[in-house]
């Protein structure tokens, strides 16, 4: 590949340079461009499709669409957001097709206006980030996330894992900002309940921090 990347001091990042190269037809640079985001792309697809093989296929298809439409990318947007937005659309389209076939999606219309009351008040003090080095902790977190209804899971993944802002999350999913906030609140509280309870049951018990005292 005979691509010369410019000096960062010139104010052009490597990503901007790669985008320009791909837009000029150097499609061989595209994988280098998307590689830093492949985890996030996969996570977005998985949050919507819930199946690893479908998520991988949707992620690949989305990247091909991104490559085909790279000239439409405008510098004022964040590339990662653009990429993940395409992935979300691809995954949503696939799920809609699948749901039509399977006649699923009954939970979509359930009322979400009712308030969510936390059920567990375990004193869950700060979790050191080293906890994530343990596979069983990551596994428990993934299971808790997978147990959420899809409308909560999707909003949570885009906002808290993909780091979309509230407005971007709303636009990506085609829902209102108010719905994003409501669903995000519920998702966070439900996960807290699921995980704080698990913590009390001992699956965080080998973590190197002290359990706080419960005041009641």
């Amino acid at each position, binding site marked *: 590949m005979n691509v010369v990347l410019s000096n960062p001091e010139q104010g052009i990042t490597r990503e901007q340079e790669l985008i320009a190269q791909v837009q000029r037809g150097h499609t061989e640079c595209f994988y280098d461009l998307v590689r830093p985001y492949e*985890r996030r792309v996969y996570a977005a697809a998985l949050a919507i499709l819930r199946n690893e093989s479908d998520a991988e296929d949707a*992620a690949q298809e989305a*990247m091909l669409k991104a490559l085909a439409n790279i000239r439409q990318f405008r510098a004022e947007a964040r590339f990662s957001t653009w990429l993940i937005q395409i992935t979300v659309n691809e995954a949503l389209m696939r799920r809609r097709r699948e749901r039509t076939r399977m006649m699923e999606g009954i939970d979509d219309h359930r009322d979400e206006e009712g308030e969510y009351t*936390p059920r567990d008040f375990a004193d869950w003090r700060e979790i050191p980030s080293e906890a*994530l080095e343990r596979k069983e902790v990551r596994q428990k977190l993934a299971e808790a996330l997978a147990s959420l209804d899809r409308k909560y899971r999707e909003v949570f993944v885009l906002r808290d894992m993909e780091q979309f802002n509230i407005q971007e999350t709303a636009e990506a999913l085609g829902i209102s900002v108010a719905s994003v906030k409501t669903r995000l609140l519920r998702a966070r509280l439900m996960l807290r309940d699921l995980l*704080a309870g698990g913590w009390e049951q001992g699956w965080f018990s080998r973590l190197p921090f002290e359990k706080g005292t419960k005041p009641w």
Partner: protein
Amino acid sequence: MVNREAVNCEQVWREISNYIEGDVDAVLRVAMDEHISTCQRCKSVLEGTRNVVQLYGDERMIEIPAGFGRRLERRLAQGARVRRSTWSTWSAWLVPVAALALIAGGVRWANSLTTPHPLQSEHAQPGRNIPPDMVVVVSAGAKDFHVPGCDVIHNKEKIRTLTAKEAIREGYVPCVRCMRKYLQTAGLSPLSPEPVAELGLSVEDEDRPRGR
């Protein structure tokens, strides 16, 4: 705005997510701070919710299947080859096809002066400031294009994804519900961030082959 004396546990739980986002007003924040400092239950909810955000926000939480990157790279390479070979095949035909398209386009344009587009509603508004590369969906037999997930998509069994620019070029009009903010009246709002520029059929990128 919530009265400072009125903040109780339920209100704290209702606002806890906005509180973490920094999306509560100063008065409510002070009231919540005071409540949380004296309420162990709410303190526990706040700390637990923060832990959730912190843990899931860590990139280590996202595990990709073994070989994911290699398979993606291979598929992208295949896709790029197909695009290049498709382009070289078609480019040989491009000049005569372009000439025919120009003639046909001229005839169609002349007809359009007297005949409305078959999909266009007489009540349709063109939409303003619609991002050209916004991904939208259309369904068979309908004349609107929508944000994916819009409640009023007709015939959801036969939907197609394309960009807003392509949808407009094909004669579709923005859904009055999910695309409301882009409709003409909304575009004329004094809060509009930039001069209103109607999304028309610009010649920019017209020659670019459409994505799959």
